[in-house]
């Protein structure tokens, strides 16, 4: 027999561990009342499209944070992939450009991961170094070049839809499903949760700690590159001035989604909802005419509130 008190506690526990989803629903409903422009197809679509890029970055970041690491070079990845994609398309490589860029991201991620796994460099430092390397490379590649690619296949595809779903959103959904599967139903997924929870125990249980660390940074890089390619398509050009601050937004989404920075926990679904929560929050503030500086303050407060709520659990 369960007493009323126990049942209440269960409900409270459930609410706390799924608070980001509940908060998102409340915010969404409140937004409908706050601005008549919010609940329109155009607005909702643009929120989704805009934030799909951030959400994909957040998923990549989540994979790395689960291992107990962090990747500060998210923005730099986005920056260099925007430049390279445009450059390669200009160079006439067509669809192959996409695959070259993705492959390059895997290699960069493997290098970051190897620094962490084999050279024992702290993830913060390894990826900080990678940030300036990538940024420098992007500027070198970009300076003095005109990299407009309007009218090529990429901008056209990014603006298009498939069965009514905007293509960037479609990509986000695919990335989400793939990682939902990878994290929950594969040896690698189990492995990285174990590594983040207790590296020593994981190693002794036969989990390939170093290989999985390298792989998680590589997969993180892959996500960042996918986001960069989408951004390139949206912009219709290559430029080295984009990407700043993407890592912070990604970390914020992961944290609002309930993952611990110390590793070993986190969910793809809640991370996506975390990213969308931030997106809707920005959108409604814009619609209500709140200026961007107060918006930054609200964002900071939301992050702190989220962490406090998870702590109560």
């Amino acid at each position, binding site marked *: 027999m369960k007493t009323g008190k126990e049942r209440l*506690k269960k409900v409270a526990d459930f609410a706390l561990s799924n608070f980001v989803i509940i908060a998102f629903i409340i915010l969404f409903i409140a937004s409908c009342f706050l601005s008549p422009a919010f609940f329109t197809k155009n607005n909702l679509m643009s929120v989704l499209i805009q934030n799909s890029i951030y959400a994909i970055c957040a998923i990549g970041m989540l994979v790395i944070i689960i291992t107990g690491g962090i990747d500060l070079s998210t923005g730099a990845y986005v920056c260099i992939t925007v430049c390279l994609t445009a450059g390669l398309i200009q160079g006439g490589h067509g669809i192959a450009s996409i695959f070259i860029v993705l492959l390059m991201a895997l290699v960069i991620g493997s290098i970051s991961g190897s620094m962490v796994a084999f050279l024992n460099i702290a993830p913060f430092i390894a990826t900080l170094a990678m940030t300036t390397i990538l940024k420098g490379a992007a500027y070198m590649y970009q300076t003095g070049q005109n990299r407009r690619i309007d009218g090529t296949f990429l901008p056209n595809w990014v603006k298009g839809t498939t069965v009514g779903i905007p293509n960037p959103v479609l990509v986000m959904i695919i990335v989400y499903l793939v990682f939902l599967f990878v994290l929950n139903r594969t040896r690698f997924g189990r492995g990285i949760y174990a590594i983040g929870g207790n590296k020593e125990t*994981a190693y002794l249980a036969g989990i*390939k700690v170093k290989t999985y660390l390298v792989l998680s940074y590589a997969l993180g890089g892959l996500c960042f590159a996918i986001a960069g390619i989408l951004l390139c398509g949206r912009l219709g050009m290559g430029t080295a001035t984009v990407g700043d601050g993407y890592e912070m937004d990604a970390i914020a989404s992961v944290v609002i989604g309930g993952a611990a920075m110390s590793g070993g926990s986190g969910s793809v679904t809640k991370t996506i909802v975390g990213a969308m929560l931030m997106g809707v929050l920005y959108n409604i503030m814009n619609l209500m005419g709140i200026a961007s500086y107060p918006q930054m303050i609200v964002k900071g407060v939301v992050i702190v509130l989220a962490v406090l709520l998870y702590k109560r659990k």
Partner: protein
Amino acid sequence: MSNGYAVEMKDITKKFGGLTAVDKVSFQVKPGEIHALCGENGAGKSTLMNVLTGKFPANSYSGEILLNGKKAKIGSPMDAKRDKITIVHQELELIPELSIAENIFLGNQPSSATGIDWKKMYAEAEEILEKFSLDLNVKTKIKYLTVGQQQLVEIAKAIYLGGNVLILDEPTAPLTGREIDFLLEMLEKLKETGISIVYITHRLEEIFRLSDRVSVMRDGKMINTFQTSEIQVEELVAAMIGRKMENMYPHMDTKAGDVTLEICDYSVPHPLYDTNIVENASMQFHAGEIVGISGLLGAGRTELMSAVSGAYQMKGKGIVKLYGKEVKFNSPAAAIKAGIGYVTEDRKTTGLILNQTIRFNISMASLSRIIRYGLLFPGKEKAIVNHLKEELRIKTENIDNPVSSLSGGNQQKVVLAKWLATQPGILILDEPTRGVDVGARYEIYMIMKELAAHGNTIIMISSDLPEVIGISDRVYVMYEGKVRGELSKEELSEDSIMRYATGIA
């Protein structure tokens, strides 16, 4: 008006949510008394002591506490400090990166005009260590000490801080024979100064050797308080587990079969110095046999077995034969594949992933059993885990509960289940019952015996002599990195083991 008690706890009740951890418990300690507090894991001993040391706010529990007959309000660690009640926890609370002296004086550093008076601090710390006959440099960082040494430093610190009431939670768990003797002597001396000592332990021999009175808790209730001199072991064990225990160690007929694992002339280099931590060790293990590896802490037992199974940071030199074939394991993964399981010594740091569920922990080392075509099958996983949960009688409603919600004994069973899930032919257990209560201990011994009866090879590293004697079929004794002796079941006695373990024989 004094009632003759240094501490009197009356009708203490403490609940966590719906669970009553301590139920109307009354407990008294006399001045200058060593009062043992025992009971199975989860009986409420630690919670009761946490109430006394101010871990919980005063309004979160009911009942009253009297100190020297006067009512005291204890609701924060500061209150306990004011009333001079000190506790040494099971989990060490020293800071690894600070020196011994800095740890002892943490928050109490002697100061001079320019800040901390280092000279005075080191001198006083040396004095304290000397009192404990601890031959250590006070400037040594804590992380370089053995767990046993750390424990003694922690106790020295508690005694230095002074107090009327000193509570020790399982203080001898990480200590070796010599260190235990030493600590018990210290406590006896300390008692003569009029300090009251509450001594929480699972080790029955210590209760009889040390305590004046003993209180037994079970399921959150106080069962009884005895004069130690007037009670028999059987009576005490019966009070602890609530039924009569026929035998501490299960008996089962097993027969040694063929040689399964053989170690020849095996040496392991020291990770820091240019010496060997294990030297020319040779051992043989048979199917259907429980072999004990005994010796003092630091004798090289753990290093030997973990190097053999690919888990040690240094690579060993020598020959290892598995089922007659020479093998070399470069990682635990390789050893697991070959059917060797290693239940490590410290479940918190190397055995469990504490923020994960019971299910996650149990299936962690045997994922290949539940993965087909790269895909994990949760149904199969649940079946395997639930089966092990039943077999090992892990006390939980749901395998998806966090492993941290279990008591120590049940956590240890989860670690064991993790390795049983890999279906190992050879199972190495390093201190398998440390910090585990009598009831769960018996169950763990039963599992070991059953595994041996099914033809598995069981290797047990243990510092607990009665345990080594009680369940081993054969024992190797190590001393300073070398195998000093091999004892058959008939030759086993505390005396014969200690002679080899201390290098006399």
